[in-house]
Every structure is written in structure tokens, then in C-alpha cells.
């Protein structure tokens, strides 16, 4: 099938499509559903945390006698919800949306290509992801329920857990395989398929961010895939990769060979999962840079420094993983090394934020809906980054490790951070993908409701952590210090449910605007990067004629130019 002729049959066009835009939208829709699902699991947990041991009215009975007898949540079910919330949000929600959705849709358009380098591999990557996602959810149908050892799945607990853990591991193998296929495709497309004149330093920052992300996925995921297979062998084939000698479980000596190491899993897991943090954050930084450049009508401040910073960030992200393990009995020399790398990695993050904020100076800021979300990313990511400081220093980490402070910290990075950037991206590129605008009033209701509610969710978690509350507690009122601060849990839960309500305008807006939204031309935001040269929505093959690139990506308000934006594809300024 050539890129010039779109396929005729419905199946080839909308379901088993090879077109990067269809695949990108498939990723987007699927991952949005997973995000909603992951959110609902959390909303359910928040009932138990706010009102421990009380029956959930009406809804509680739907979950059956095993999970919630009489509407009262069981600790096993709570742990399943916790493990699956984390797994779904990270591996099936945010990464597929940021990388699979935005990356697939925008990379060929922004580099000026007709499609991805390997369209069939691209389609395969989506379908493997979907299978992995469905398999992951199927864990809930297993005897004993879904995986319940946390999204981190530390052995020996995970080795000994019910069969839901086996499903979790199998699903992870699918999801990781899908990511590997995707990352190869991204790298080859960005390196090989750039339009004429698209030099490395003319690429939009979003592309640099996706390129670094693709390398992180390619290099960091295989260790976890291997580790998942090892844990699978421990569970199914009787090996002891992660089981030491002499385990006694419930008073019975465990009949295993032993000789394994529980810490080996933690090293393999965090060797992936710390770069994974940057897989979540780099595409978000890419998106907000595009949105902010467009809406400030001004070139991004120090674009080259921005690019060097993400390259450095990507490299350094492989050297910090053991700061998740300061409490495992690590020696002083080791912990010093990982503290130094952790301090170093904060520097490029500060530089990226500085470049973006300095871009506001001398700008003419349009407060569009995507711009509101992009601007909100900055202080939210700032809080997430700053609260990493007491966790990154081993002395203060002694107290804060595994407390709610950690939960608050990483959620600030990923939820009001990355997720807000992804919302910015959806509002920003919706007219490109559909040919229609989303409603701005509904968008502003969505924004203001979400930003207030989400801070109501995560800000009190820092107080809980400082007050000494451990994370992953089914009933925090077991502890005296938990009982005293229990009102915070009620406040957080109400904020979380309010946050859910404020997503309804977004969901309505997303679908209703497909038909009723204001029509958009090919460049509704008066933007400069190549995707805006294509029609909205872009046809099969993207561009009517092969684009040629004449200048850097963010040439706004060039003195003497005809308009306040000088697109990359226009020969004259």
C-alpha cells in the first residue's frame, strides 16, 4: 500500500490502519480510557481512606462479596486497587498518551514526513499495547483478584502473591514490547525522514524531547522485561532469582531452592523506573514548549540550551536509580554516589524551567485554554521537583522514605505536571486532528476546576508525610498519628471526587466538538511548525507537496516580517 493512496476498506482505514495519525488517535483514545479507569480505581480507594471500614453506599455492592462484602472494602481489594492504579496510570495511561498518542501523531507531521519509517511495526506496537492493557485488566478476574503488591511488585511479596501477579507480569511483557517497537520507529523516523532543510537544530523542541524519550525507552525497558520474565519463572517454574534461602512464610518453611536476592529486582526495576520518570516528563516539557512558544508570540529563550539540557537529562536519568533504595541498608559510599547524581540531575531540570519562564519576558501572552494548562505545568512541576530535594538527601530521606510525602512528590510531577501538559496538548492539537476547535468556555471550567481540586488532593499529602504517615495503608487510623490527621484524608477524598466531576466538561467537550466545534483552518493558532502547514485534519500522506524548511522552529514577531509568525515552511520571512 503506497502512502499516496488511502486504503478503501473501513477496517484498513480506521481499525488496522498503517497511518501514523490513525494509530496516534487510537493510542490517544485508548490511553484516555485507561486514565479514566485508573482514576476511578483511585476514587474508590479514597472512600476507604476517608471513611475506613464504612460501607460504600449504593456502589459498594457492585463489587461482590469477595472484594467489598456488604460494601466494606477488604484490605486485599484495597491493595489490588493501589497496585493497578499505579500500573494503569503509568504504563497504560500517561506513557501511551504522551509517547504513543502525541509522538505518533506529531512526529511525522513536525519533521515533514509522509508517515513513520515502519508503519507496520507502528500498527503492531499499538495492538500489542492494547492486548497488554486488556490482559492487565483481566487480572481482576483471576482467583484472588488482580496484582496486589504495588506497581513496584517487590519480591518476595510479589513472588508469593496470588495469580493476578502472573497476569501483571505477562501484561508488562506485552506493554514493554510495544514500547520497544514504538521507540525504534520514533528514532528512525526522526533521524531518517526529516524534510529538506530540517536540520537538527531546526527541529521543534517536542521532537528533541521525543527523541531522548525514545532512547530512554529503548535502553531502560529491556532490564525490566528481563526482570519480569525472571519473576515469572520464580512464580511458574520454581526458580529463585529473587528468593533468598531460608524463607518461612506463615510458619512454614518455603520449599524453594533459595540463593536469590530480593534487592536484585529493586535494582532492575528502578533502572527502568527512574528513566521512566523522564519518559513521563520529557514529552510533557516538549508539549508545553510548543504551546508556550505559540502563545507568547516570541522565540523560545535559549533554544539550544534547552536541547542540550534534555540530552543531559536523558543521560543522567540512567545514573540515579538507587536513590529509591536508601533504606535498604546501602553503604555510605554508594548512597553518596547516588545523592551526587541526584543533585546533578536537578540542574538540567532547573535550566529547562528557566528557559521556558524567561520566554515569557517581552512576550505577548494569549491566555488560550492550552496556554492555561501549559502555564500551570510550570509551578506544579516546580513543586514536584522541589519536594524531591528532601527525598534525594539520604539524611532527610531516613524520615520521609515510604511516607505520604513521597506520594505527594511524584504525583505533583506526574498528575498536575505531566497530565496538565497532556491536556494542553489535546486542546492545542485538537483542531489539527479534527478540523474543529474545542469549546473554550468548557475548557476554562475544566482548567480552573482541575487546578484547584488537584492541589486539594496532593498538597495535604506533604503534611501527612511530615506527620509520619506511611504510604499504602488500608486503614491509616490504626496509628495514633494517623488518627490525629485523619481530617486531611476526608479533605483529600472530597477534592479527588471533585476533580473527577471537573473532568466531565472535558469529556463532553472532547466528543461534542467533533460535530459541533467551530471549524478550524489549517493553522488556527498562527503557529510556525510544520504540522500547521498540512490541512486540518491532514490527509493520508500528510502534506499536499513535500515541505521544505527554511528556518528555526519558533520565529515569532520577527522584525520586518509580514505577520507576527514566520512559519518554517515559508520561503520569505
Amino acid at each position, binding site marked *: 500500500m503506497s502512502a499516496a493512496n488511502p486504503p478503501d476498506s473501513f477496517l484498513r482505514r480506521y481499525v488496522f490502519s498503517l497511518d501514523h495519525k490513525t494509530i496516534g488517535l487510537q493510542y490517544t483514545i485508548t490511553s484516555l480510557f485507561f486514565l479514566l479507569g485508573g482514576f476511578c480505581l483511585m476514587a474508590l480507594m479514597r472512600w476507604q481512606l476517608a471513611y475506613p471500614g464504612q460501607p460504600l453506599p449504593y456502589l459498594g455492592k457492585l463489587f461482590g462479596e469477595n472484594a467489598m462484602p456488604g460494601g466494606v472494602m477488604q484490605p486485599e481489594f484495597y491493595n489490588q486497587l493501589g497496585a493497578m492504579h499505579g500500573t494503569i496510570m503509568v504504563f497504560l495511561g500517561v506513557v501511551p498518551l504522551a509517547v504513543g498518542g502525541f509522538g505518533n501523531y506529531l512526529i511525522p507531521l513536525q519533521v515533514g514526513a509522509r508517515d513513520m519509517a515502519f508503519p507496520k511495526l507502528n500498527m503492531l506496537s499499538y495492538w500489542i499495547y492494547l492486548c497488554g492493557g486488556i490482559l492487565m485488566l483481566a487480572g481482576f478476574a483471576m482467583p484472588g483478584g488482580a496484582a496486589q503488591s504495588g506497581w513496584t511488585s*517487590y519480591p518476595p511479596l510479589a513472588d508469593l502473591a496470588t495469580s493476578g501477579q502472573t497476569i501483571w507480569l505477562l501484561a508488562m511483557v506485552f506493554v514493554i514490547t510495544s514500547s520497544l517497537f514504538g521507540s525504534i520507529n520514533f528514532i528512525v523516523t526522526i533521524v531518517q525522514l526529516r524534510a529538506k532543510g530540517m536540520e537538527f537544530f531546526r527541529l521543534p523542541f517536542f521532537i528533541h524531547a521525543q527523541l531522548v524519550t525514545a532512547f530512554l525507552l529503548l535502553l531502560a525497558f529491556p532490564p525490566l522485561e528481563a526482570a519480569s520474565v525472571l519473576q515469572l519463572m520464580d512464580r511458574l517454574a520454581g526458580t529463585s532469582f529473587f528468593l533468598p534461602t531460608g524463607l518461612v512464610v506463615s510458619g512454614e518453611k518455603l520449599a524453594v531452592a533459595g540463593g536469590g*536476592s530480593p534487592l536484585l529486582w529493586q535494582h532492575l526495576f528502578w533502572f527502568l523506573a527512574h528513566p521512566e520518570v523522564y519518559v513521563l516528563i520529557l514529552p510533557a516539557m516538549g508539549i508545553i514548549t510548543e504551546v508556550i512558544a505559540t502563545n507568547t508570540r516570541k522565540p523560545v529563550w535559549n533554544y539550544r540550551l534547552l536541547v542540550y539540557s534534555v540530552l543531559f537529562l536523558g543521560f543522567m536519568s540512567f545514573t540515579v536509580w538507587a536513590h529509591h533504595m536508601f533504606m535498604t541498608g546501602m553503604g555510605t559510599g554508594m548512597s553518596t554516589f547516588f545523592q551526587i547524581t541526584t543533585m546533578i540531575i536537578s540542574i538540567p531540570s532547573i535550566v529547562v524551567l528557566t528557559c521556558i519562564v524567561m520566554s515569557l519576558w517581552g512576550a505577548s*501572552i494569549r491566555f488560550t485554554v492550552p496556554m492555561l494548562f501549559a502555564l500551570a505545568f510550570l509551578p506544579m512541576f516546580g513543586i514536584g521537583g522541589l519536594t524531591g530535594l*528532601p527525598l534525594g538527601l539520604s539524611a*532527610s530521606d531516613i*524520615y520521609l522514605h515510604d511516607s505520604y510525602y513521597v506520594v505527594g512528590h511524584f504525583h505533583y510531577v506526574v498528575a498536575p505536571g505531566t497530565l496538565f501538559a497532556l491536556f494542553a496538548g489535546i486542546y492545542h492539537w485538537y483542531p489539527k486532528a479534527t478540523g474543529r476547535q474545542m469549546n473554550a468556555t468548557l475548557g476554562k471550567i475544566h482548567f480552573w476546576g482541575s487546578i484547584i481540586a488537584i492541589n486539594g488532593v496532593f498538597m495535604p499529602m506533604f503534611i501527612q508525610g511530615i*506527620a509520619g504517615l*506511611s504510604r499504602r495503608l488500608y486503614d491509616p487510623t490504626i496509628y495514633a498519628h494517623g488518627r490525629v490527621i485523619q481530617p486531611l484524608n476526608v479533605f483529600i477524598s472530597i477534592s479527588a471526587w471533585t476533580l473527577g466531576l471537573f473532568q466531565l466538561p472535558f469529556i463532553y467537550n472532547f466528543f461534542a466538538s467533533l460535530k459541533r466545534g467551530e471549524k478550524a483552518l489549517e493553522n488556527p493558532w498562527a503557529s510556525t511548525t510544520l504540522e500547521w502547514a498540512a490541512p486540518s485534519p491532514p490527509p493520508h500522506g500528510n502534506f499536499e507537496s513535500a515541505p521544505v524548511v527554511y528556518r528555526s522552529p519558533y520565529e515569532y514577531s520577527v522584525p520586518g516580517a509580514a505577520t507576527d509568525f514566520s512559519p518554517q515552511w515559508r520561503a520569505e520571512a
Partner: protein
Amino acid sequence: MDESAYGYWLPPDASAHGPQIDHLLGFLHIFMALIFFGWAAFFVYCLIRFRARANHAATYAPVRAAFIKYAEGTIIAVELLLLFGVSMPIWLRYKQARPDEAQALHLRVVAEQYAWNIHYPGRDKKFGKASVEAMNGDNPLGLDPDDAAGKDDIVTINQLHIPVNTPVIIDISSKDVIHGFNIPALRVKQDAIPGQLSTLWFTATQTGHFELACAQLCGLGHYRMRGDVYIDSPADYAKWEQENAPAVPAPEQK
């Protein structure tokens, strides 16, 4: 358990090394607040001053801002100072200063789903022999009943009694999965990892009743893996030790 000791900030601090950690936490949060609010003021100022409006256009040339380098340089310098000047010395003073065995109380803690087994060596300061094979419901630590050193050992579940102002050394391990030995009021935390012996130490500086919590998800009972920590005056501790010493006669009295 007295709830009045707790509130919306750090719990009471009953350990010798704890105040250093508390000061570090306090200093860090002031530093973070300064950066955040300083930055936010600049951010909000930009949003207001450079909003799109009639007769206002963006400037193409990037702003020259030398102060950025100084601001970033200052942040990096403070981070390095925090790491090498504050955090590492606290960590080293605490982690490298293993108390003198002769003056310290040496305990073993063996975690399991979902309890803390606490093993006191007794008056002879020698732990009885223990083995995995001998572990059962009545003998959670697998102590050898024939070992003379174990005759006077005290074993408790979830009840940690320690004397005030005495260095305490605890060897921590686990029988099954990873647990997290966490006493917020003493500012101590250590993963209890099966197959690995980890050691921590502290000196309690005030008497009282505090909580031992599990910090690491260890299964469905993780939330209720709670223990009591009693920091006793020397007299109270001696009394407790006497009352709980096993009824078996000590070997030399045979």
C-alpha cells in the same frame, strides 16, 4: 495511646540524632519556599506585564539576563552545600557511629507477616541459637531450647521496651517478605529484608509510649503491622526485664 502528642507537623522527637534531621527538614522547606515563592512572583509578574492587549507586541530579541546565571549558580551552590555540608555529615555521624557494644542494649528484630518479633539476649547478653528449621507458631524465632545462651532470652511480639539514654543496637531481618522498620518518633527507618541482616542504632532521649510502623507494603495486613515502643526509665526497664525474664533457672544456679 496518647494522641495529644501528635499534630499536623513532625511528631515528637525522642532520639539523640533526630533533632539534626528535623533541623535539616526545616531548613530545606524554608529554602524550597524561598525558591518557589521568589520564582512564582517573577512568573505572575510576567503573566500580568506581558499579557496580550492592544498596542502591545512581543519583542523578537531574547532578553539578556545575567542574573539567571547567578540565580542558578546560587541554587547549585546551596544544593552542594546541603549535600556535603549538612546532609552527608548528619548521615555519617549517625551511620558510622556504631555505639560501643559494652554500653549498648543489643536486640534482634525479625519481621514477619504481620508482626514484629523482638528478641532480647537477656542478662548474659548472648542471643540463643536460632534456626529456620525450628521455627513454628510457638517458637517464631526458631530458638534452640537446649542452648544455654538462650535460656534467659526474652521474646516479645510487637512490644519494644528500651531504656532511655542508653544506646540501642538492633539487627533487623525478615522471615518472609520485605518490611520497613519505622519508628517516626525516633526518626529511624530501615527495610527488613529476608536473607539480609541490617543494623541500626539510636539513643532515646525521653521516656514515653510511641509507635512502631511498617513502612513497606508487605501484604494485606501491612496496615495493621503496628507495634508499641516503650521508652522506660532505667528503673522501669529493669522492672520490665525482671518481670518478663523466662521462668527457667539460669544455668549457673542448677
